[in-house]
């Protein structure tokens, strides 16, 4: 198998790895870079547990080759909190609203919600539900996830208005 060197930015850090050309981005992150926040929940691009941000778009990292992320900019759940450790409003809102149980879908949910709020800073409940419909959760029934996302949105908008 031909191996390729990939260089990219992950959570603000420049990284490099030697991978097979067939290596998936999710395996580059989890196996080569030890970034284990994003999870694997299916083999069919349906569950969204592997969701990360690549160049400003939500992608399912199990459906992207590592080499496609060459020179790319990746954000995973590990990169969401501020440098001083302050949690991202979404992380805080998920905790405050009981938006997670087993936590397995959570990293994907959070990174997806993060991108959703960039795309639509003021989503309705219906827009949130559609916006996270690529991410499955078996535990929560989504109600508290939806609540958490709308609360985080409100908070982020308030902060923005104050600034």
């Amino acid at each position, binding site marked *: 198998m031909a191996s390729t060197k990939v260089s990219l930015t992950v959570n603000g850090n420049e990284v490099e790895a030697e991978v097979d050309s067939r290596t998936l981005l999710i395996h580059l992150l989890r196996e080569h870079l030890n970034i284990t926040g994003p999870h694997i929940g299916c083999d069919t691009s349906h*569950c969204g547990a592997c969701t990360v941000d690549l160049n400003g778009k939500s992608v399912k990292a199990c459906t992207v080759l590592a080499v496609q992320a060459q020179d790319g900019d990746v954000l995973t759940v590990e990169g969401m909190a501020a440098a001083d450790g302050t949690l991202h409003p979404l992380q805080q809102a998920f905790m405050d609203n009981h938006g*997670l*149980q*087993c936590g*397995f879908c959570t990293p994907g949910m959070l990174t997806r919600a993060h991108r959703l709020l960039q795309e639509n800073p003021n989503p309705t409940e219906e827009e*949130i539900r559609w916006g996270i419909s690529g991410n499955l959760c078996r535990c929560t029934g989504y109600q508290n996830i939806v609540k958490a996302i709308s609360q985080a949105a409100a908070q982020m908008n308030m902060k923005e208005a104050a600034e």
Partner: protein
Amino acid sequence: MNKQPSRKEREAALEGIGTSRKRVEDPRFTQGKGNYVDDIKLPDMVHGDFVRSPYAHARIKKINTEAALAVPGVLAVLTADDLKPFNLHYMPTLAGDVQAVLADEKVLYQMQEVAFVVATDRYSAADGVELVEVEYEELQPVIDPFTAMDKDAPVLREDIKDAKEVGGHGPRKHPNHIWTWEAGDQKATDKAFKDADVAVEEMISYQRCHASPMETACCVASFDKINGALTVWGTFQAPHVVRTVAALISPLPEHKIRIIAPDIGGGFGNKVGVYPGYIMAIAATVVLGIPVKWVEDRIENLSATAFARDYHMKGELAATKDGKITGLRCYTLADHGAFDACVSASKFPAGLFMICTNSYDIPNAFVSVDGVYTNKTPGGVAYRCSLRVTEAIYMVERMVDILAQKLGMDPAELRMKNMITPDQFPYTTTFGLQYDSGDYPAAFKKAMKAVGYDKLRKEQAKMLEDFKAGKSRKLMGIGISTFTEIVGAGPSRVCDLVGLVGTFDSCEVRVHPTGAAIARFGTKSQGQAHETTYAQILSTEMGIPAADIEIEEGDTDTAPYGMGTWGSRSTPVGGAACANAARKVRAKAQKIAAHVMEVSEKDLEWDIDTFRVKGAPDKAMTMKEVALAAYSNVPEGLEMGLEAVEYYDPPNFTFPYGAYICVVEIDTDTGETAIRSFYALDDCGTRINPMIIEGQVHGGLTEAFAISMGQIIDYDETGNVIGASFLDYFIPTAVETPVWTTDHTVTPCPHHPIGAKGVGESPNVGGVPCFSNAINDAFAALGGVHTQMPHTAPRVWEHAKELGLVA
């Protein structure tokens, strides 16, 4: 001067029972710092992957591993022949049967494990799997359970074809028969049916489905050759049981086996049993001397790990003409697949099916279940319910609606008429179960009032009129479910696992000199937040803030022996152990406090977090102060330290209950169902953390919605498993999932130290019949009686068509 904190403030500082304490698990999960099995990476670790059968029933003629072994990175390919010398090609199941670890001469279901390829990384292992050549001779499969016991049916289990019984459950009638289980008074029940004014009968099938937690099954096994010690990290709901089984089937003694269940990404029953992947990872690490990881993918998870349900129940109810139920009969055919790997207590092959008289005062009942083998995946786990409880409740709740229809009575009225009343508690059912406590009519009335039941019925009648008049194509359905659950398995005198260990559970608590504490448990959270809730019980009982109590589970080297988490047993059993251990600590603390304050123990009273001298309330010692004294100044004859262990064997099960009402609208032309509203009232006794209870109910209802509206693991006539990926298997997204309205009443459990009953599974048990009743109710006035789950749009449309409602 500082103001003394008020009682309220002191109580709030504890974050004890009854507070919606925020989860302590969340900081790690929201920052990507969970520690799930697949996150574990050990030096030199290699990966295992399975070669699986493409056939449902076939003889293995030859396995050629040469090409696979030539793949760079592939280290070994193991087959049943490699396991035979160690007698590891079969493993015991929880049901008292055996299951092939790797197929022995014959495959019995599609996707069965045939060979195990070990390689340096997952990609090479997958390459190796592709290149293992297996020659098969196809055999005729048995797919329909109703034909399994036909005279000319092929014998599936040649390994036990002469066995008189399986699992000690009595004589077999056919080589594909596993056991027959019966309960109740057949004669009296037959008489009740003979004397009845009205009787109804219906075939109620509960389809094969799958719990499919978001994290699939996986493990990392590591054998230390020098010390002869094995460590296995795995997705185990019951780690101690795994350790004991491992000690029984391997030459390793139990103290050299350490089972660790780290963070688990959901279980719902799917992670109770032992799978071939675990055994193979262990076998491979023992052979190779390096750590071996096995992670199944989603398709393997859905098609090869334990299914749930597959119960085909012929339900019958007898009643007087004014609607008093006088008898219940049910004959069930249970499809167990190729091996009986059903999760159940050894004495109950059909689990707790006896709960089928539900919340009703039914004087006579008789049930019988036949388990059969077919060429399907083994399993039979309780998908978010106690063993076979959801099947039983589904059957009876459907039957009650069918009876109401026959009697021309409102299903709510019929239920109310037959409910056990509060003055009948403790109530002993005709099967001998003793229900602990409840006020079923009050709960149901509250539910009906909350949804405006009578108004809904009027609206439904109006919609029906419009439909009949051709003004609308929509029908409205109202589903009711009033259910009683049986959880907290269970009293060891009636319940055990693998015929060996009773279903008690345990807690060990240790208070440190500064008044902080650690507690360890035999249960294992898979998302239920035990780290949060157990600390709440301890804090209320010991007067130590929950934030100062560390909770640990899942490591068999450190945790006291326990049966793990399934069947909503953590609160009823683990929670009781927790409260009692804390009470032992407090009792010792009281002795120490009395000694230090130089008063008699009897003169002290407990006040939230403090021992006070009666009559001299200023003379007091907080638990924190006592903790320090426990390590420096104890009375003569008392040991130092402040710790306790409790092994709690419950005197009885607990019986949470609820009343659910669902409203649906069905478009008859497309068969599509819109869930208009869903109201769920649960009574789980004392509520430890209302926020978490509500979350459990949301999750359970969503699973009930999934099962009733879409989930099915189906097979075609040659035994190809259909729909075993997330492409086909219905996992609702946020878009389809209804909005849930939750409510509660509180009737504490009289035999539980803090009165709690458990809640995780109620919403699944009560939710499934509620949805199904709603769908069936929509068609009841137009001649529909029963249509089988899952109620997908095509099936509902078919039903409408059968009734002549669509062209």
